[in-house]
């Protein structure tokens, strides 16, 4: 079955300071196909799609579309050509309404005045065709991540999209929402829209794509028919080595209670009670919006508590501010790394030292030699891949940024580490490293709370799982009772 080549990118190179992000990558995309780009974080996928979307200009190479050859694409040209991207970070205007966002830049007008009624009607139509219900007049800032995602897709649909690029679209979605998304993609596929799909979730790639291209370290490894590949082969191509996708087993769990939480409430979540044993990895499962992140923010002093108490190693926690909680031994590794985990414009060194300034100061003057020694020790221990500790956190891959966040809390010797989606947006290889680090931490006597929306991770890493549903605790599963069905049953409140 010969298909027409719609888009041809030839010898695309892009150099960033210190990194060759793309090294003469060539790729043909057929008309109407769903094509996956796979590779570890930092492999160059994001750079590649930014070139295609006109967000950045490549140093070399050319792009052919509709018989025209371009040295680079501008955002305006991309739009004219019908190339739309849904980025991991949403491009929405939070203070505007859903409809205004969907039609951003091409508002329907009447007599030169924006026709709000028409805009809302058409937005509603798009949502109906997508099979979702969102009020076109609602402000985007009030929507959950999953809904923002859907608004992004509606935005692309509002224009005559020919090539839709989706960068990790399912990351913030729950299982049900992912299903809606896939049905939507199916619909678009039948309408002849070409889709370029990026995801770390290999199951999805096998499920929705026809062909896939593997990128590793800025180079193209090859393009394959998805159906002719096995999961193991694909992982092997991605990381360039055999890798077992099994989870390291945590063997450090003791019977000693490290953290005891009683009827903790706040942030829309009520009456959460559990005991975290020393050396244990306690999973928190539930749908997006069940209140897992919210209650952990209360526990770590970030948001206000309305009731309940908690004790760490016998001492009551005050939960008044992150500052106090850190001192008391609780560390939060937030889900939104770029905004809450690291300061992107500061170097690794200053990020790691930030909560640990007391360790390296005397009369609040910083001992530079000492901080350098401490940080380089952590960088070695965590295998943070960067040319130096002066590298800005913003130039690191997701996995390495996560390690920088971890380094902060290792240095401050936190007793309980709360991981909120520890491997979101992190590639297969780095994931394994994070898992091993978590086990190593437990060996050293720390205890871990892990919120995860990835079922495999949750079942694979946890010693026990607390499941929340709509702000309430539905149950605690022991390891021998672990199953996808059991978690889902509790998470959807069918108990």
């Amino acid at each position, binding site marked *: 079955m010969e298909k027409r080549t719609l888009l041809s990118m030839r010898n695309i190179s892009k150099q960033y300071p210190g990194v060759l992000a793309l090294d003469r990558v060539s790729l043909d995309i057929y008309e109407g196909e769903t094509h996956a780009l796979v590779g570890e974080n930092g492999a160059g996928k994001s750079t590649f799609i930014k070139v295609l979307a006109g967000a950045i*200009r490549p140093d070399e190479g050319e792009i052919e579309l509709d018989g025209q*050859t*371009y*040295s680079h694409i501008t955002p305006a040209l991309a739009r*004219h050509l019908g190339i739309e991207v849904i980025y991991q970070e949403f491009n929405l205007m939070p203070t505007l309404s859903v409809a205004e966002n969907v039609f951003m830049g091409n508002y329907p007008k009447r007599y030169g005045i924006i026709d709000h009624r028409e805009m809302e009607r058409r937005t509603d139509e798009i949502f109906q065709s997508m099979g979702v219900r969102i009020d076109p007049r609602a402000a985007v800032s009030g929507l959950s991540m999953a809904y923002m995602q859907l608004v992004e897709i509606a935005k692309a649909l509002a224009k005559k999209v020919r090539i839709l690029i989706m960068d990790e679209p399912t990351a913030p979605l729950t299982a049900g929402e992912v299903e809606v998304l896939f049905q939507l993609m199916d619909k678009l596929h039948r309408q002849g829209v070409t889709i370029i799909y990026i995801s770390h979730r290999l199951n999805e790639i096998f499920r929705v794509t026809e062909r896939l291209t593997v990128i590793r370290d800025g180079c193209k490894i090859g393009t394959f028919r998805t159906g002719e590949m096995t999961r193991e082969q694909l992982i092997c191509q991605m990381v360039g080595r055999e890798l077992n996708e099994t989870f390291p087993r945590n063997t450090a769990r003791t019977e000693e209670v490290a953290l005891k939480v009683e009827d903790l409430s706040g942030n829309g979540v009520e009456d959460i009670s559990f005991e975290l044993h020393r050396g244990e990895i306690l999973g928190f499962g539930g749908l997006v919006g069940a209140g897992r992140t919210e209650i952990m923010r209360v526990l770590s002093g970030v948001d206000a508590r309305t009731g309940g108490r908690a004790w760490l190693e016998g001492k009551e926690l005050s939960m008044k501010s992150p500052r106090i909680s*850190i001192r008391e031994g609780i560390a939060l590794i937030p889900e939104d790394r770029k905004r809450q985990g690291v300061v992107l*414009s*500061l170097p690794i060194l200053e990020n790691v030292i930030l909560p640990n*300034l007391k360790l390296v100061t005397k009369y609040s*003057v910083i001992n530079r030699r000492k901080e350098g020694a401490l940080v380089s020790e952590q960088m070695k221990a965590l295998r943070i891949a960067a040319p130096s500790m002066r590298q800005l956190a913003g130039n690191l891959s997701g996995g390495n940024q996560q390690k920088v966040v971890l380094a902060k809390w290792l240095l401050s010797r936190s007793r309980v580490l709360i991981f909120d989606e520890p491997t979101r947006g992190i590639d297969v290889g780095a994931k394994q490293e994070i898992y091993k680090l978590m086990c190593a931490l437990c060996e050293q006597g720390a205890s871990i709370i892990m919120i995860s929306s990835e079922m495999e991770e949750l079942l694979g890493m946890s010693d026990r799982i607390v499941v929340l549903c709509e702000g309430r605790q539905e149950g605690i599963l022991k390891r021998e009772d672990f199953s996808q069905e059991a978690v889902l049953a509790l998470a959807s409140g069918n108990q």
Partner: protein
Amino acid sequence: MRKMKIDVKKYVSWIILVVLVLFFSAFSPRFRQISNAITILRQVSINGILAVGLVYVLVSGGIDLSLGPMLGFTGTLAAMLMVENGIPIFAACLIGIFAATLFGLFNGLSITATNMPPLISTLGMSYVIKAAAYLIHGGMPVYSLPKEMQTLGQGYVGPIPIPVIIFVVIALIGAFVLKRTSYGRGVFAIGSNQEASRLSGLNVKRIQVAVYTVAGFLAGLGGIIMMSRLNAGQPGTGADTSMDIIIGCVLGGVSASGGEGSIVGMVGGVLVMGVLSNGMTILGLNEYYQLLMKGAVLVISVGFDYYARTRKAEKTVRIVRSEGKKEKE
């Protein structure tokens, strides 16, 4: 990589300074004299002292428009206390500085307590303080200060004016605290990413309050020196100062959006402003041309800086074929 980038930003103001000095020296023998250099230093020292505080405010992600009027207020208050109320000189000066510090503290507290934008809150305060300066003495300046009061603003140690020495000491302390202490690290961190800083256990509000308070304190100190130099408590002093020092900081590579900046750069920026005024006065150009030049230097230098940064990224792109040009529709 990072070192390179920082250095360029830090020294842009110094490069402009060298160019300006060479330019004025070429055209005016009077400008070249050592005594003139000292005059320039004395002229910029008070603004410089205020700008040290402003660097902290800007790096922390804030802004303070109320520092200029504090000059007039502090000077008038202290002068009034010593001339009319018979309070000892030293005590009167301390009370003046203390009052300015309180204004700074109020700025910090009101911003952190209400989360209102510092631009608005300090704009409002600049009017309040300006009004207060006039009201406390019925709008009249305070003259005939005690003789001993003149030393601070008009005295010399060897050939160096005392205000210059104070400026240098404060700039050195300011640079050290900003770069080498945990407090300085905190100022940079909250200016770059407030939420991540808070989650890292920094007391964001305390750092913010401290930043405005220190700026107020330094404005008070500047006000006393200014009073001593003018030999009077002038309530209207410092009308343009707020803007002048913001320009000085920005010229010196201090980012108006926070997280970036240095005292070294700011000193260069403030000196550029001083050299411009002085050089143009010597060349006989009137005040209006000076205003024009100050504005132009700001827009051109900062504009060039931003342009160069964008340009660098694009320089390597070539149009492959002629069809490629069609994109510019």
